[in-house]
């Protein structure tokens, strides 16, 4: 490979930020995604690039409570990436939070790596709460975690989960939604990455999941629709969730309208970038845009 790939060691704190401070974080994560995927020669760039802005606020804007030096901290909030194929964004985010060395991002999808193609709990990568990848399962596991905190232990911990929108075609997703709504899990925040793209095409064309807002409202969620690339709106949505949690309100569903491949012009809003990695030339072009 003529393109030289290196990962800076830079990590970011989890604290209240001004909105313009997220630019650098999101840019770094997007670079990581492109770099780790061109090295892996397989994987999913589109979804990770699209959800990067949400992940930046979630992990670095004092929304979640966690301690990278003590990943098993018993009071931590938990994050489940139900759309396990978007693992590259989670790996980069965790590395940039300080859970493990950023250099390890080079090992994505390689044999023996802790960075499995889809998150694998068996590899014991700090910050990974569960294996995921079989769509519709992660969100249900997250509901179980939220039940443990809210119903059994009655503590203040929160559970965040990201699903895709195509993932909502899995019936099990709605079993999870019904359970969260019926048990009124105030501590549960479900983020739908609504880029309207899936492997075969537009979600609208393959099998429409719309209307989303009304569906989740009917399942007893407080639904917030946002521009998933607008830090102010992302922050406001998480603030609303915090309020719902404090007031023993409904579980929260944030429908984040995003663009697949956001940040890389030739990938932007193109469903064909769901599951194909950039080649070296494409990665070079992408990285030249991510500065």
């Amino acid at each position, binding site marked *: 490979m003529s393109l030289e790939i290196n990962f800076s060691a830079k990590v970011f704190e989890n604290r209240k930020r001004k909105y313009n401070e997220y630019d650098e974080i999101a840019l770094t994560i997007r670079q990581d995604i492109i770099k780790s995927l061109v090295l892996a020669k397989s994987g999913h760039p589109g979804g990770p690039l699209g959800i990067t802005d949400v992940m930046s606020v979630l992990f670095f804007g004092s929304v979640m409570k966690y301690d990278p030096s003590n990943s098993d901290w018993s009071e931590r909030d938990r994050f489940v990436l139900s759309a396990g194929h978007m693992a590259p964004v989670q790996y980069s985010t965790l590395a940039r939070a300080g859970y493990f060395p950023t250099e390890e991002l080079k090992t994505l999808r390689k044999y023996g790596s802790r960075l499995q193609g889809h998150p694998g709990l068996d590899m014991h990568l700090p910050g990974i709460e569960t294996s995921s990848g079989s769509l519709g399962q992660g969100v*249900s596991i997250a509901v179980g975690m939220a039940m443990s905190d809210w119903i059994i232990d009655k503590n203040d911990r929160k559970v965040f989960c990201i699903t895709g929108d195509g993932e909502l075609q899995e019936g099990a997703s709605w079993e999870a939604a019904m359970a969260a709504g019926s048990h009124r899990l105030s501590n549960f925040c479900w983020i739908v990455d609504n880029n309207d793209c899936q492997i075969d095409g537009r979600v609208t064309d393959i099998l429409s999941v719309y209307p989303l807002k009304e569906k989740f409202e009917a399942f007893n969620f407080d639904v917030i629709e946002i521009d998933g690339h607008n830090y102010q709106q992302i922050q406001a949505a998480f603030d609303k969730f915090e309020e719902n949690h404090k007031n023993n309100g409904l579980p929260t569903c944030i429908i984040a309208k995003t663009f697949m491949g956001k940040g890389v012009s030739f990938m932007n809003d193109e469903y064909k970038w769901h599951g194909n990695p950039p080649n070296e030339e494409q990665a070079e072009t992408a990285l030249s845009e991510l500065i």
Partner: protein
Amino acid sequence: MTKIESYGNKPTRDGFGLGLVELGEKDERIVVIGADVSGSVKTSYFQDRFPERFISVGVAEQNATTVAVGLALSGKVPFFSSYSAFAAFRNADQIRVSICYNEANVKIGGGHSGLTVGPDGATHQSLEEVAFLRTLPNMTLICPADFEQAKKATIAIGEMVGPAYLRFGRPSVPMFTKPEDEFIIGKADLLREGTDVSIVANGIMVWEALKAAEALKEKHNINAEVINCHTIKPIDEEALVNSAKKCGAMVTAEEHQVHGGLSGAVAEVLVKNYPIPMEFVGVKDTFGGSGEPFELTELFGLTWKEIYASALFAIDRKKNGTSSIRKVKDVAIYTDGI
């Protein structure tokens, strides 16, 4: 004919339900996920005793399974129970990925297993789940023989760490293991010593195996060994190989398809270690149907009579290489007058 003794009848599902309560008393991490059939699978006992540790998720077995995983990953010891027909198949992907790959400490109670669920018919008669579950890495799989053993097995899986599936049934069945008998996961029980043929059974077929052994002794002076192989995974290789060496012929018996269940598990052990003639008693690649539980076991060939005849086949093969009586379909002629 019988000299073997039972001391009453109770369903294995009751053993599961009462075992859960006993576990709950000892360990506050025990939680139970209800999927609308709590009264049938007896998780209602736990619900009555510990309502604060019982979470209902409705008729949604996929979600029940993964919710249990979420609870396990939060330090709880969750039990999810439904009928085996729904607790092992419609949630198969969840069991594979979220329970077994995660090595999550989830316990599944598979109730109403096999033909003996009776009149509900084929849709509710799970006869295949052992074949699926035993292929899953990290899984422990147990099928107890009676009420007392079901109770002990429930407690044992609650006390071990890792995924486990307990297979039990609906009707009252003879109780013959004693409260003081030891139960160890992965250790088969040698119930009767013999030298001519080894009968390896689990679930309700253990009682039938004991009856068959008694009949073989009476009619042919054959000394049959009987092993209760309650744990299908991890299977007790040592006990099976020792018995194979001692007897030179073996019969497996289970309330399950003859393909892939206990039969397959035992055959895999013997083929690798000590191949001998084997015969399999079980449901023969067909679905069940409505009927009374023990009418069905007669009709589908799940009684001591098939075990008895199969033992004769196996011994014949051991002696002669092949069996001249192998083709005979109606076992009645071998069991007349017993």
